[in-house]
């Protein structure tokens, strides 16, 4: 199993450009998450999904959109990138059941710089 993979690993954007980050998992997990990591702030949840075709807002959703058309993929979109979106983005997944105790598995991250 590859686990959780993220594409691309690095990206530099200009302000106003758009891009999509792809997260893929091969563990048949129901739940998937997008986080951003900024120095001194830990990880903050952007959006998440509890199953194919569902999405929900997390802690810091503004400026981002997501889609979960296939169970194994979770896409994070930036429609008009801003310098404040410079960050490291992590995707995670977990098996997921009601009141589940299972853990989240993380991808290697995408380092995004917006100039």
């Amino acid at each position, binding site marked *: 199993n590859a686990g*959780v993979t993220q594409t691309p690993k690095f990206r530099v954007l200009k302000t106003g450009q758009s891009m999509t980050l792809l997260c893929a998992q091969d563990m048949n997990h129901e*739940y998937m998450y997008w986080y951003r990591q900024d120095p*001194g702030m830990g990880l903050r949840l952007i959006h998440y999904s509890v199953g194919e075709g569902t999405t929900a807002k997390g802690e810091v959703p503004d400026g981002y959109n997501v889609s979960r058309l296939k169970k194994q993929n979770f896409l994070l979109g930036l429609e008009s990138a801003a310098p404040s979106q410079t960050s490291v983005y992590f995707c995670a997944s977990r098996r997921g059941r009601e009141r589940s105790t299972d*853990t989240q598995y*993380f991808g290697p*991250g995408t380092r995004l710089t917006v100039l």
Partner: protein
Amino acid sequence: AQSVAQPEDQVNVAEGNPLTVKCTYSVSGNPYLFWYVQYPNRGLQFLLKYITGDNLVKGSYGFEAEFNKSQTSFHLKKPSALVSDSALYFCAVRPSLNFGNEKLTFGTGTRLTIIP
């Protein structure tokens, strides 16, 4: 609202000495508690978790953590530190009764440096 506090940004320990990385939490009801480790330029790796039962939880790489309900703490410990333990450590909490709350709240991280 749930929260996690890691009061120390940086912890330095001599190799071979015991180490402790502190974590306190706030959550409604009973907590699910997690420790993750992040090595440079890598994603987070799961170390251990407390769900229920024994307050002392053993995890990967010789780490353990003690759940203390009265002090709302979940400190990470290791009896003898290795240089390879140097990394960024995150504590996280989620309420056991989700009711639609999928949020796993992370602390800001503690950078552990083991000095040879």
